[in-house]
């Protein structure tokens, strides 16, 4: 659709309708953006200005990066940032590998055991195992307090698997035939033919995994000792709880970190999502997801 293309049959919209729509859109955009602006501004304000204004600032009068410098001098947040980044990168690679191989095998007709395995996988969607058995399993496997406990229990997401499989199935059969005639085995077909054609699907699924790993905190709270926590769990304990939501943080001694520092941690946890978001956004428009959701 080209910009501002009103079909000939459509009547000219009334100015009141136009105005109402414009107001609605502005409200939607502001509702999303203002909270982000408040945390960014508060993190860049001086602690005194934040206190004088009652705990928040919409626009700092004298911006300072002191809060960020305090954070990156070392300590809990710096370490947690490293943990989050590591788990996100390693986890995404593991997840992508296992999702792609399984999705590829399940997308080819006539695999030994393909049908039962597909049913087995889809059933897990209907009946998740539950918190308690999962926790006891991780414990029995000796994964407690290891970073593997954040990755292996959530290695494959069924939705991502279905998206990937659907994409592989949409690749024309002739391409597989041609590759086979050239003498390529299945590894070769996957690596040299299928994957280069699947960049969009790989990007979407990879980014979904990365976002999920980055945002995850519950498993860390369940499986890890506090000195191994990723950023989101630190944020949960010191910021969400520090503001009076839970009392879990009171023994840790960081509760009284200035509001500016708390908001700076929030910003640091949000920025990677904002950075990869344009790439995600690029692929939504390609219809990778809409196609998958419909099927």
């Amino acid at each position, binding site marked *: 659709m080209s910009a501002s293309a009103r079909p000939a049959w459509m009547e000219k919209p009334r100015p009141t309708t136009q105005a109402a729509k414009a107001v609605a859109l502005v409200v939607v955009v502001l509702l*999303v953006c203002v*909270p982000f602006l*408040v945390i960014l501004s508060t993190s860049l304000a001086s602690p005194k200005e934040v206190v004088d204004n009652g705990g928040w600032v*919409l626009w700092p009068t004298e911006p300072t990066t002191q809060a960020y410098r305090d954070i990156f001098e070392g300590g809990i947040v710096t370490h947690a940032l490293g943990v989050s980044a590591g788990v996100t990168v390693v986890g995404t690679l593991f997840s992508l590998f296992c999702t792609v191989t399984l999705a590829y095998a399940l997308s080819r007709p006539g695999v030994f055991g393909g049908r039962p395995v597909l049913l087995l996988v889809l059933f897990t969607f209907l009946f998740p195992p539950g918190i308690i058995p999962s926790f006891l399993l991780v414990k029995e496997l000796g994964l407690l307090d290891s970073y593997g406990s954040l990755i292996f229990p959530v290695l494959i997401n069924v939705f991502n698997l279905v998206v990937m499989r659907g994409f592989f199935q949409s690749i024309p059969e002739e391409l597989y035939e041609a590759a086979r005639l050239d*003498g390529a085995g299945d590894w070769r077909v996957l690596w040299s033919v299928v994957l280069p054609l699947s960049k969009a699907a790989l990007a979407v699924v990879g980014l979904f995994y990365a976002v999920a790993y980055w945002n995850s905190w519950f498993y860390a709270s369940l499986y890890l000792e506090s000195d191994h926590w990723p950023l989101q769990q630190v*944020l949960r304990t010191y910021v969400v709880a520090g503001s009076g*939501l*839970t009392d879990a943080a009171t023994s840790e001694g960081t509760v009284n970190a200035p509001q500016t520092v708390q908001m700076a941690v929030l910003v640091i946890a949000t920025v990677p999502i904002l950075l990869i978001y344009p790439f995600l956004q690029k692929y939504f428009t390609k219809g990778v997801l809409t196609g998958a959701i419909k099927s």
Partner: protein
Amino acid sequence: MAAVVRERTGTEAVTPSRHHPNGARTKRKGFQSRRSRTLFLLMLPGLGYFLVFHYGALAGNVIAFKDYVPFDGIWGSPWVGLGNFQRMFQDAEFWDAVLNTLWIAVLQIVFYFPVPLALALLLHTLTWSTVRRFVQSVAYLPHFISWVIVVALFQQVLGDTGMLNGYLGDAGLSTVDIIGNPDAFKPLTVAQVIWKDAGWGTIIFLAALSQVDEQQYEAAAIDGAGPWRRFWHVTLPAIRPVIVLLLIMRLGDILSVGFEQMLLQRDAVGPEAAEIIDTFVYYQGIVGGDYGFAAAAGLFKGVIGALLVYAANKVAHRLGEQGVYK
């Protein structure tokens, strides 16, 4: 392994014979079995994951029928039959959690469900695609923000030292007590879900709207139908299947309301307002150490939930829609 390699080199050597119909068929057959073996190997890591972490964990649900003692392990703990379930059915706190879950789910269906639909209809009427794409980008964004950050953002904006109360105070109005107030908690969670997921929820409606044949609108307009009648007679019938399907699937999933969202805020408002089935399981089992009892509650939810999803899917089929499970 050696056989596989020999077979491969063999295939390459006799490539010309492939043009012969018979030769092609025999080659293909050998090829098929090797393919099947490689594909099976490719399947193994993923299959192993599902077997261990889903079916292995699923098997761990036996402790719902046991008095689980960590020292004795899953198999060494004594059986108690349906004892855990009997206790659960007599536990008033459990039923409070069930009621809270259903109540929050109903609030979400009534107040959240129409929002993505309305937003999608609004976006769909925008003919200026630059604006449309910008608003879409902004509206999808919160879906990718973690619940921890969403809860913190709401504190910062609606909390007693937040932006809203700051403005109300400056204007000389009385402040509102939203965050940490048990009475306001359920509407607050619905507002959070709307903020986080309403934009993302438009995707499926926008996809359905884009499928509507433009000529139907044109024909209706030529027949004299104004915007409202076109909406009523063309747009709505076209997207009704999607609306019905999503509504049925949401009803099937009625026992699930955001676990992370509730867990993050439960302690601030207390279990009376915020305990849902999932947090009940978590607090009884992980926090309280009553693993068998908690697993029983979790299993109860899993079984009823699966039955509801299955039934919802059947209803969707009955209505002629394509369900999630074919």
